[in-house]
């Protein structure tokens, strides 16, 4: 009977020892598949470059990593031999990685690959020679030591998790920043073609050319007229509507609010062709007014919903008091509600301004003559089938997006709140 008992009565010491695996080893086991993934990517890159030596060496490195992962999983207390094997294999791996790197062209991406492939070969022996790990693999772990180790694990897990978060975010930030750094480089490089090293020659010729070119200022002027017009008209339409939806209960309120939601569901494309024909019939093609009308109506539903949400937060008691004191409804709106919700109105204004400033499709369709281009269409026309002025385009992009980005970052919290109020609920 006793031989069939599956669970031996564990003593307290057994329990602590069975539970304990040093955090270093746990983390390495968890993160190692990513290392193998990156190493496999390096094989793919070598294949794309057609470099046969590099293909073999990177495949060898992947193999060594696989062996290491296998051994890491086998590691347990009392397995000193495996730990020593890991040391040896890491050394081989490190040597291979260095050879692989020296053989390659040594670009930034190769440095990144080598870091991903070689650093684990350093980390594994370092982790393996930590005092706690040494004690663990030697199988001489006392109960006290195991309990201490479990406590240390908690602290270390937190540290490792922080490192992982930074690692993920740093990679994301790099991927986001790459195109932006590149466009900066193109903007300050001489000539209008691509290529050349990063920041090897710096010139301001594209900026000078832009500032002295007539069309850039013309496009900027058009964009300003359209965006400011859109903002003013959009607000003039949206503020009263948002206020009415927030404060009044009237017949037709729900159908009207539904109409505003419905419009947001319409894809722009279904309107584009008829819109174009209506604008054409009314003679509004190639005018700023046509775009202003179109943009303010496109942004209207979102603006109305944003403003309704903001007006809802203005306390009603203030208005009621003013009404009792003899103000008319109009006076209440102009003297009390509007001043109180001025920040919200500013955010809505910024939102419609940015939407008009960045819009491309309608501007491309409606305003086809060059002197009526807005900035988006004008900038896109620099990169077309009849000419690719990359340097001029890059410089113009920087000039155009810088103010927009600053505004966006400065007001991001409000813009996102407003968008989620209008967008996600809709």
């Amino acid at each position, binding site marked *: 009977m006793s031989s069939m008992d599956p669970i031996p009565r564990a003593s307290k010491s057994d329990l602590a020892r069975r539970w304990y695996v040093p955090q270093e080893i746990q983390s390495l086991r968890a993160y190692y598949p990513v290392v193998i993934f990156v190493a496999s990517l390096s094989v793919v*890159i070598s294949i794309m470059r057609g470099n046969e030596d590099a293909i073999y060496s990177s495949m060898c490195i992947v193999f060594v990593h696989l062996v290491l992962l296998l051994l890491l999983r086998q590691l347990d207390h009392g397995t000193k031999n495996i730990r020593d094997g890991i040391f040896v294999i890491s050394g081989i791996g490190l040597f291979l990685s260095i050879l692989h790197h020296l053989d390659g062209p040594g670009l930034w991406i190769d440095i990144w690959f080598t870091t991903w492939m070689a650093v684990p070969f350093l980390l594994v022996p370092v982790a393996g020679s930590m005092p706690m790990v040494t004690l663990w693999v030697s199988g001489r772990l006392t109960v006290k030591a195991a309990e201490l180790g479990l406590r240390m694990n908690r602290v270390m897990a937190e540290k490792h998790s922080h490192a992982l978060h930074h690692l993920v*975010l740093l990679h994301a930030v790099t991927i986001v920043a790459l195109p932006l750094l590149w466009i900066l480089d193109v903007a300050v490089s001489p000539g209008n073609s691509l290529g050349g090293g990063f920041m090897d020659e710096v010139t301001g010729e594209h900026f000078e050319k832009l500032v002295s070119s007539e069309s850039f200022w013309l496009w900027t002027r058009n964009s300003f007229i359209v965006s400011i017009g859109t903002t003013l008209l959009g607000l003039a339409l949206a503020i009263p509507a948002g206020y009415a939806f927030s404060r009044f209960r009237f017949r037709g309120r729900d159908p009207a609010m539904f109409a505003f939601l419905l419009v947001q569901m319409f894809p722009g494309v279904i309107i584009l062709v*008829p819109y174009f024909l209506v604008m054409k019939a009314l003679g509004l093609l190639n005018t700023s007014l046509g775009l202003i009308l179109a943009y303010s109506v496109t942004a209207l539903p979102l603006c109305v919903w944003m403003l309704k949400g903001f007006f809802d937060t203005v306390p009603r008691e203030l208005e009621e008091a003013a009404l009792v004191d003899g103000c008319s409804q109009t006076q209440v709106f102009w003297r009390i509600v509007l001043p109180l919700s001025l920040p919200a109105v500013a955010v809505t204004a910024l939102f419609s301004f940015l939407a008009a400033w960045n819009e491309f499709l309608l501007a491309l*369709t409606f305003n086809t003559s060059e002197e009526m281009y807005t900035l988006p269409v004008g900038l896109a026309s620099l990169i077309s089938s009849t000419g690719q002025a990359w340097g001029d385009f890059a410089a113009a992009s920087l000039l155009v*997006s810088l103010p927009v980005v600053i505004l966006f970052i400065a007001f991001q919290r409000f813009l996102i709140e407003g968008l*989620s109020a209008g967008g996600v609920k809709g």
Partner: protein
Amino acid sequence: MKRFLILLLFPILLGNVSAGSVNQIELDGSVGYRQVGIEMVLSEPATNGTYYEIRMNDSEFSRTEDSLLHSVIIVGETAGLMQPEMGDWYDDCHYVLGDDIFVPIHRKSDGTGVVPNGTVSIGCTLTGIPSGQEYYFAVLTIHSNGTEVISPVILSSSTTEDTLVAPLKTSPYLFAIGSISLSLIALLYGLRWLDYRDGRTTSKGAHFYIAPALLSLAVLTFYPVIYGIWLALTDADQSRLGEHVFVGLENFFTVFSTSGFLRVTGFTLLWTVVNVVSHISFGLLLALALNKSGLRGKTAYRTILLLPWAIPSYITVLVWRGMFEPAGAINDLLGTDLNLLADANGARFAVILVNIWLGIPFMMMSISGALQALPKEMYEAAEVDGIGTLGQFRHLTLPNLRSALVPLSLLGFIWTFNMFNVIYLMTDGGPNLDFDGPGSTDILITYVYDVAFRDGAYGVAAAWSVVIFVMLVVFSWTYMKRTNATEAVT
């Protein structure tokens, strides 16, 4: 003065000419809208293996590298090649064999023009030359032995005004807009009167407040939508506008019988699904990474990660297009020699990649907001129960985020489905553009744009729009149904 110089150069150039080179060209800007006619006279009858490159630029050029290639004509075997009639191709071309008879040019399957051995002159109508702008033209002859001869560079411009589009009558539109406005005003007035009669005090002036917004919405959104549905049932196109008549469902037959209808729909679905899934998964990953309490530099990370959303999308898309160029940053970075945008699958991969990059920040911020709303106590309880990070994510975070993720993914679906900028600016539907079908990277809406504004077929384009709208409604509805159904089960 320039012409004078060219005339002076003329004899010198003539001296260099070897057999079958183009040494004289004549240009005519009055052949049609956005067209320039070119006549190329060959020094001697053409021989097999010679290439003629028609090159142009908006400034004068002396080296071919400074000019753009308009089209290529090859001297070679013409048997078995198609021979489009005048008006069936973008560029109408013809050649003369020596007997003064104009023969339409032969075309290879990729559109390259082919003329037979012994041709003495070639004429072409070059299309796509913007009206009223001056361009310089020249023809480069490349002989089979590799020697190159360039013809004189001659200035011309397309002078024909746009006569295809008939002026539209304004009165029917004004009538429609007027009647819509008047009926809406009457409706609002009626509702106001009803409220007044019932003695509602909460609605003072409300109808007056919403009238401007509602009116503009009706005139500038609902009216075009209804007009679009009507257009889909007519034969409206660029040349017959204002006189278009009802043709029933003909346009819809055209839509469904378009070669590549299934292909473009399939790619649109692939594009949308891959994008939305990646946006949500990467957005979730980054939102979780940013949600870590006590992480240093969180604001800096968030600000940088927001940039793809903050920068106008047309700029970032064009920047990515430059990076994918053969001389661009992607090849510099990877040390490879790729030309992704020239290959159909490569271009598909590239446009999807760029749109993923563009869309992550919005999802990241939206999911971040939802994550912050989750109760902290829940996680503390899980911690006490010894549930690991992965377990917490699977059993606490994901189920609780569901109510936010379902509408977000639907919104992402609609947006991505209608994302025009990325594909239009990256590839314009290319690299392989068909003449009566969508290109390799076209999605539905970029193709509709081409149908409407490249081909001028407004009725067909309107029919496409209606089909797309129905697709979107069906997808959204099924999605809502399915997600609601599973919600009821779990």
